[in-house]
């Protein structure tokens, strides 16, 4: 397996405050990786740094070419879809328009129409509501819409920031199943940041643990899940 995304010595700043202190890790093509860490460890910042939404130094390479200094939109156009915290739904637009926006950088009209249908297959509830304003959807529906919108890009890499946030446990299970399917069937590499460590470790094959802006542990998800410290700190048993 080759490294699709390679991050080296990443340091990010919010104004004067440094949030990442030389963070390094790599993502393999086709993997489903989770980033674990306490509140404020720098998980969200890492995702934002990949899309150049926060001032950073260091090296981020995607397919061997550097992402540093590129604008957010041009990074996205390389096939990196980012579902931000809070989902980033276009609340004033309809569900279908949200999906079309996901594919705004694509040119294949027929493909887009087919993909919208495919999304309705994954998330039938979106089809029921396709003319509805996205802001009127429930939290879970909005999260599905956000994932579907990200998939409309036909991404090679998908970054998800706390997809379980604010959702009922049952809905979270469904969502994670679908993420697993997307990873296997569509061969989309996924990097997911999660508070719900247990669920994330069940789903993922790789895991990295962040503490105060650095990677402190990396490995297979099973192996991490069995680690004494991780169990104590993040799984609570």
């Amino acid at each position, binding site marked *: 397996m080759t490294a699709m995304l390679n991050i080296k010595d990443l340091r990010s700043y*919010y104004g004067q*405050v*440094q*949030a990442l202190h030389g963070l390094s890790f790599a993502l393999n093509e086709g993997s489903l990786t989770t980033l674990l860490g306490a*509140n*404020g*460890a*720098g998980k*969200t*910042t890492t995702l*934002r740094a990949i899309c150049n939404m926060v001032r950073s130094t260091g090296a981020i390479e995607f397919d061997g070419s550097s992402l540093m200094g590129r604008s957010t939109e041009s990074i996205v156009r390389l096939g990196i879809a980012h579902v931000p*915290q809070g989902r980033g739904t276009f609340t004033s637009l309809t569900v279908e328009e949200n999906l079309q926006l996901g594919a705004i950088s694509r040119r294949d009209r027929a493909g887009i129409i087919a993909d919208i249908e495919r999304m309705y297959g994954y998330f039938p509830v979106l089809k029921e509501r396709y003319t509805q304003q996205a802001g009127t959807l429930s939290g879970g529906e909005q999260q599905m819409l956000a994932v579907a919108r990200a998939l409309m890009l036909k991404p090679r890499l998908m970054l998800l920031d706390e997809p379980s946030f604010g959702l009922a446990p049952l809905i979270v299970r469904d969502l994670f199943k679908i993420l697993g399917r997307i990873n296997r069937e569509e061969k989309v590499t996924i990097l997911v940041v999660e508070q719900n460590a247990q669920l994330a470790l069940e789903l993922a094959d790789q895991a990295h643990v962040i503490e*105060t*802006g650095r990677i402190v542990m990396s490995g297979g998800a099973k192996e991490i899940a069995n680690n004494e410290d991780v169990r104590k700190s993040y799984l609570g048993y």
Partner: protein
Amino acid sequence: MSAAIEDVVTEAPAVEAVPKRAMTLGSGTSLVVVLLLLVVPLLVKNFIIFQMTMLLIYGLAVLALNILTGGSGQFSLGQSAFYAIGAYTSAILMEHFDVNYALTLPIAGVLCFGAGFLFGQPALRLSGVYLALATFALATAMPQLLKLGYFEKWTGGVQGLVVTKPDAPFGLPMSQDMWLYYFTLVVTIAIYVFSVNLLRSRSGRAFMAIRDNEIAASAMGVDVALYKTLAFGVSAGITGVAGGLGAITVQFVAPDSYTITLAISLFLGMVVGGVGWLPGSIIGSAFIIFVPNIAEGISKGLSGAVFGVLLFLVIYLVPHGARQFAMVAHNLIGKVRRN
């Protein structure tokens, strides 16, 4: 690094916050400025004294806007309207009712306070760009209201009113211009001291709390509605006094002296002087009085363009206006002293 920082909403605030301390001058500097203002008129010609009087008057008007914007974070592109109300109040009282000029000023102030307070009511519901819009409309509508047939008996309609210039009282041996200058200076200093104290008071803290975060302020128990309208009222009142003084000094009021151009000038004066920095008002005032003179000297109609270009330069290069220079100077002096 906390999650709270990651979640910061990156919405631009209406006005950049100015710490309270930074809003005034030290006592040493103040003394020098007052001395200068006292002595210089004794040495110069009458026309320059007239210009210095206008400098103080516009300084007051800019100060008033500064209290509103720098203090409570509300905009106004409509200050010319309150200035006009003040000017007409003084002029009408003096010419039609023979009221002493000095007495017309508090009346103008109170009347404008009322007008501002009333206008502040609808303005409460508006913020940022909507408030700018409403006040912009107010400023453009004002000259037409003043030209109205109903009031022509008092306002003199399009022709306007001529105001008599007062003599120095008690047989003081000074020219009318010089007397008026010192009279204006006293009023200006009184209002300046009042404003500084206002901003240092409970009300001032309430203003600033609203400016920095309205919702948080109301959660802390600040009566946002009251203080916002109060800020409008105080600002309008001071502008009204300035307007009254202006009418007496220029000896003439007419609708077309109080157009949107005046409102824009005052706004410009505030930005140039530094939003929220009260002493900057006088610098802003100097800017709006002398720059057009110089520009019109070069070519007629050029002053608007010069204004505009300079305004752009200010917002790009010195976004804090004259205050920025003052801060740099302050730091330099501090360094020299230490060495």
